[in-house]
């Protein structure tokens, strides 16, 4: 089966500064693919390149059916949720979710309203349609961000640290939601996180980035990496120990 995303020899940086180099990996259809690593190693930056918000210094990214990641006028080929949810503060939750539908679906107002209610119910936010983002919690913002990302039923979803900064119950609920979307709707999901519980629960495959190596230090199933990797950085990460003790 052809991969959904193919990344080859990617180099990311600004000017003379190289954040990571020679990064290559593939994401298969149906994967919950996790990009993990310590703070500042470039996880979110890699994600921004995968969705086309930034351009690499070198290498290629290919998304099946899309080609190089593109963002511009037109229905988006994939859904994206940002770390904070990035909801539009002047719009209610239903208006936030309705925006991509109003722009690209061609549905009438009544149908859009029905779809929006359905999407918000899917993420557990029914009853909050008329709330502004400022009136709901951080976890709810992330859920609403996922609902907006799912508005046009994408088959590929990018999530930036969906469970970061949430209480344990909200984090678990979000993990369940990601798994449910993957299993029930067949959404291939690429997500960035450094939450170990989330990684072991939802990831089918992962890559681990390292600030010092400036690239990928490990790739594969997270449990296998935890149990077999000899890399001190990988062992320290999975065993929650300082590097020197790993």
């Amino acid at each position, binding site marked *: 089966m052809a991969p959904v995303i193919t990344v080859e020899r990617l180099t990311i940086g600004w000017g003379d500064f190289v954040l990571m180099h020679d990064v290559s990996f593939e994401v298969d259809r149906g994967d919950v693919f996790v990009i993990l690593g310590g703070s500042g190693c470039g996880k979110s930056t890699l994600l*921004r390149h995968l969705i*086309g*918000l930034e351009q690499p210094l070198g290498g290629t990214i290919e998304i099946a059916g899309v080609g190089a990641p593109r963002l511009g006028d037109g229905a988006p080929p994939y*859904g994206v949720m*940002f770390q*904070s949810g990035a*909801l539009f*503060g002047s719009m209610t939750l239903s208006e936030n979710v309705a*925006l991509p539908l109003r722009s690209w679906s061609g549905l009438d107002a009544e149908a859009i309203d029905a779809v929006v209610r359905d999407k918000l119910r899917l993420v557990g936010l029914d009853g909050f349609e008329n709330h502004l983002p400022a009136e709901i919690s951080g976890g709810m913002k992330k859920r609403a961000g996922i609902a*907006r990302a799912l508005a046009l039923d994408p088959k590929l979803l990018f999530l930036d640290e969906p469970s970061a900064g949430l209480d344990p119950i909200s984090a678990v609920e979000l993990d369940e939601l990601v798994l449910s979307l993957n299993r029930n709707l067949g959404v291939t999901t690429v997500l960035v996180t450094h939450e170990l519980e989330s990684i072991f629960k939802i990831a089918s495959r992962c890559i681990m980035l390292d600030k010092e190596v400036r690239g990928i230090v490990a790739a594969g199933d997270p449990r296998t990496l935890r149990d077999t990797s000899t890399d001190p950085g990988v062992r320290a990460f999975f065993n929650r120990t300082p590097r020197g003790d790993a």
Partner: protein
Amino acid sequence: MDTHADTYSLERRTGEDDATTIVVGGVVGLREAVRFVSELRAQVAGSPGRVVFDLAGLEEIDTAALALLLHEGRRLSPPAELRGARGRVADVLTLYREAPRGSLRECPTGKPVFVQVGEVVEGLWERWLRTLSYVGECTAAVGATLRRPQSVPWRDVVRIMERAGADGLPIVVLISFLIGLIMAFQSAVQLQQFGADVFVADLVGLVVTRELGPLMTAIVVAGRSGAAFSAELGTMTVSEEVDALHTIGLNPFRFLVVPRVLALVLVLPLMTLIADLTGVLGGLLTGVGILDLTPRAYLIETRLALEPWDVFSGVFKSLFFAMAIALIACERGLSTKGGADGVGRATTSAVVTTLFTLVALDAVFTVIFHLYGI
């Protein structure tokens, strides 16, 4: 030996091997840290050989004071030796010694002046390129808008018109009225000397409609709405809302910039006309109150002095002022970096740049109108 009541003590001892021992005792808190270090430095000064800091009598020390003590020790050649630390002092010392070197940030060092100049020039060049790119994006967005007017979020346009226009009108009316009043008062004092009182109406009418009406209105709108645009878009940028627009497939220029430009282009000429009218009314109040002119005489003189072009030229300029305010404010907002601090800087920059641009544009128009005799 120096002793500071209930705090710390410092004593200098010289051994047989020329080593100088500074015996530190008591408690050193944050309040005493600066005095402690300056006294420590004085005790160490002039020591010919090795220096030892004896911390056996030190009961407690603040982390900042200990950092300063270690720094003083490292400055010496050879570095001072630390001895006898115990209890909490030893614990804090262990913490410092075990701190990973990489976690301590290097002190920034000054860059050579040529490097600094080069960085400034590079920054200006990059800003110029960004501005060119922004103008290109805006032109493309305007072209797309003209082809598909239904793609404009008209509901936002109306909302922005209300905020920038209706909400800002009271202050525009007040300022233009006062400008007309002050100008008439100042000119009346001069013109009365020549018996040319009635020409106050000519002066106020011409200056208000051709120059001050459009300019003052634009300045007020730049201060109110331009700053608001910049802060709003800046906040959206730093909270990733602009990125989110991209990922929804909506062009931020068409979705955010075009409605603001359209709103100001529609509303500023109307506000300018109202400012012209209230400016003339301000002059009329002075004319009637000070110069004993009748309102009818004042208004007839104003009408005789003004050509339709005088009013139209001000309105014409206001169209360009509106575009300048909206485009500059949106550009600064969309190029915001950092957090709340970045939004503040973007807003300040937007207001300052807009005010300068408005005055420069007004000067350019004045010269062009003069050259063409209009």
